[in-house]
């Protein structure tokens, strides 16, 4: 009876509060916000959610050299992980490919974080006027004024065997023979990826830095902190959310990248995206779908892990 009375009371309260909530608070009709969000929601649904569901479904289908049949089999996933759990000392193709991709992810993440943090720090703390900050920001976006492919192609005359760098180094006598590792190599891939994605680190870190109250830095100085101590004790902890958002951009993009790795690696370096692309070229959609789902799972787990490191809701 007591409990019933309490429920009754709480329902009454709820009734009262809904009544208040239903009272008009604005002249805008209630459906307007939904209408504003609808175009993007529709695009997302039609061209993101549906294809993703389709991919998931197809990953369980059967295929032969000349046909694709609806089914519910796990053979595609077995094929993806063929030889991976056999206990042999050699890595299976999938693991080797992921390892290669993850190597790039790790290197590119570390380099873009370092460069991005440094650039953001310079922009946020050393450039004093807003017009100058905007101007320098525009400079950072210059690489995005041309298409990715053109940018990569333009590396070739620079880094090639008879390219600008090799010619210069030879002419000043630093090297006798052209450096072979400049182009179509891990170095070239890393260079291109870093060049492409550093901005994705700069923007969120810069944004976090701009939100730091300058008096905090003064307070740290007042407390006797050196520049380095201020950096490690105050600035880095406070820009963690920016670092995290930038890291998510870089890690997810590099994990799925196959164009850059393909071109800058001279089509000699394996990547997960490249594997999927090849399978699609051979019309092996089900196994390509299975690979895509595995890739998606890897990316999601990575993001989940990163989100656990920093509570982003608290920080935003």
């Amino acid at each position, binding site marked *: 009876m007591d409990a019933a009375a309490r429920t009754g009371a709480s329902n009454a309260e709820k009734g009262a509060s809904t009544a208040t909530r239903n009272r008009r608070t604005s002249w805008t009709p209630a459906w307007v916000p939904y209408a504003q969000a609808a175009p993007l929601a529709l695009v997302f649904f039609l061209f993101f959610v549906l294809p993703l569901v389709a991919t998931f479904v197809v990953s369980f289908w059967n295929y032969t050299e000349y046909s694709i049949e609806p089914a519910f089999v796990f053979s595609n996933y077995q094929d993806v992980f063929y030889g991976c759990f056999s206990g042999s000392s050699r890595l299976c193709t999938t693991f080797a490919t992921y390892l290669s991709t993850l190597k790039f992810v790790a290197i590119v993440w570390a380099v873009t974080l370092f460069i991005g943090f440094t650039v953001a720090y310079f922009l946020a703390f050393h450039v004093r006027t807003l017009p100058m900050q905007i101007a320098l920001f525009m400079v950072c976006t210059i690489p995005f004024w041309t298409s990715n492919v053109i940018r990569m192609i333009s590396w070739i005359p620079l880094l090639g065997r008879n390219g600008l760098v090799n010619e210069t180094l030879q002419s000043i006598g630093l090297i006798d023979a052209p450096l072979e590792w400049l182009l179509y190599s891990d170095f070239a891939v890393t260079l291109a990826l870093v060049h492409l994605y550093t901005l994705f680190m700069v923007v969120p870190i810069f944004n976090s830095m701009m939100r730091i*109250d300058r008096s905090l830095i003064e*307070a*740290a100085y007042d*407390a*006797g902190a050196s520049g380095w*101590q201020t950096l490690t*004790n105050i600035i880095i*902890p406070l820009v963690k959310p920016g670092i995290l958002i930038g890291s998510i951009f870089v890690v997810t993009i590099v994990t799925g990248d196959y164009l850059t790795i393909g071109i800058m690696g001279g089509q000699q370096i394996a990547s997960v995206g490249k594997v999927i692309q090849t399978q699609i070229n051979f019309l092996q959609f089900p196994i390509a779908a299975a690979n895509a789902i595995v890739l998606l799972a890897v990316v999601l787990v990575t993001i989940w892990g990163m989100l656990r490191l920093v509570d982003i809701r608290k920080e935003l």
Partner: protein
Amino acid sequence: MPNEAADLELAAVTKAYGETIAVDRVSLKIPAGTYCCLLGPSGCGKSSTLRMIAGHEFISDGDVVIGNQVVNDLPPAKRGTAMMFQNYALFPHLDVRDNVAFSLKMAGVGKAERRQRADELLDLVDMAKYGDRLPSQLSGGQQQRVALARALVTNPTVLLLDEPLSALDPFLRIRMRAELKRYQREFGISFVHVTHSQEEAMALADMVVVMNDGRIEQVGSPREVFNAPKTVFVAKFMGGHNVVPEGGKSYAVRADRIRLAQPGEAGTEAKVTDVEYQGMTVHVAMTRKDGTDLIATLPESEFDRSPVAAGDTVSVAWQPADRHELAA
């Protein structure tokens, strides 16, 4: 426990930003253990002066001396000063205890020792039970106490406060004002407190420094400054004064020394322009024939004996002894 209190001396301290002179050859001696208020309107150079003492602003010219050491080129932590910032500048990602222990951590004091010291300070400002909270979980007054504990943890010889009460609501401001005064007495060190509120300065200070336009207008105890303003600016800024021109000179007359009488009686005629009821007192605003605006503050009972209203003509008078000559 606190350091030796030390005298603070400014010798012709100047701050120039390019062509603009923010602080113009300010000389001042603050004896050890003084509550000193730098008072003035915004842009008068009081904050720049404070920041030069603190070591957050380079000194263009002149010397800052603490004890018997010129500290011009020393970083804040080496000057024996500590600063309390206007918005407190507590580190949002550190809990209260780590905020207070921050400068000890920077100095390399071990974790257990610095936490114990931080807890002592928190206990002193009645914040011991909030050690694990984040600054965002504290009220304005609590944040201020934490900021105070953080500034005092290094045993400074001079504590510098930059408009410490301006972020608080009026009720809390008066309470925290009393607390600041108490801590200053207990620690026995000098507090240099920047404010634009003459009420705050009069309530707190042993020594009021009124500044205007990068210069010191007057230095003295609150009573000296209020009762004997030296310049027109000080008389106007401290409030409660009428500035009256007479025979080519300016005089200050306190608003509560002005007597009103029926027209025709001794005094000068003036027209009442406004009457404001303030509770214990009534403010009567008047304009004299020569265009001088006057304010009289009358006790409520006295006002009630012969009430006036806007538009009335009255006779205004004061004792010659209540008239005080001003420079410029």
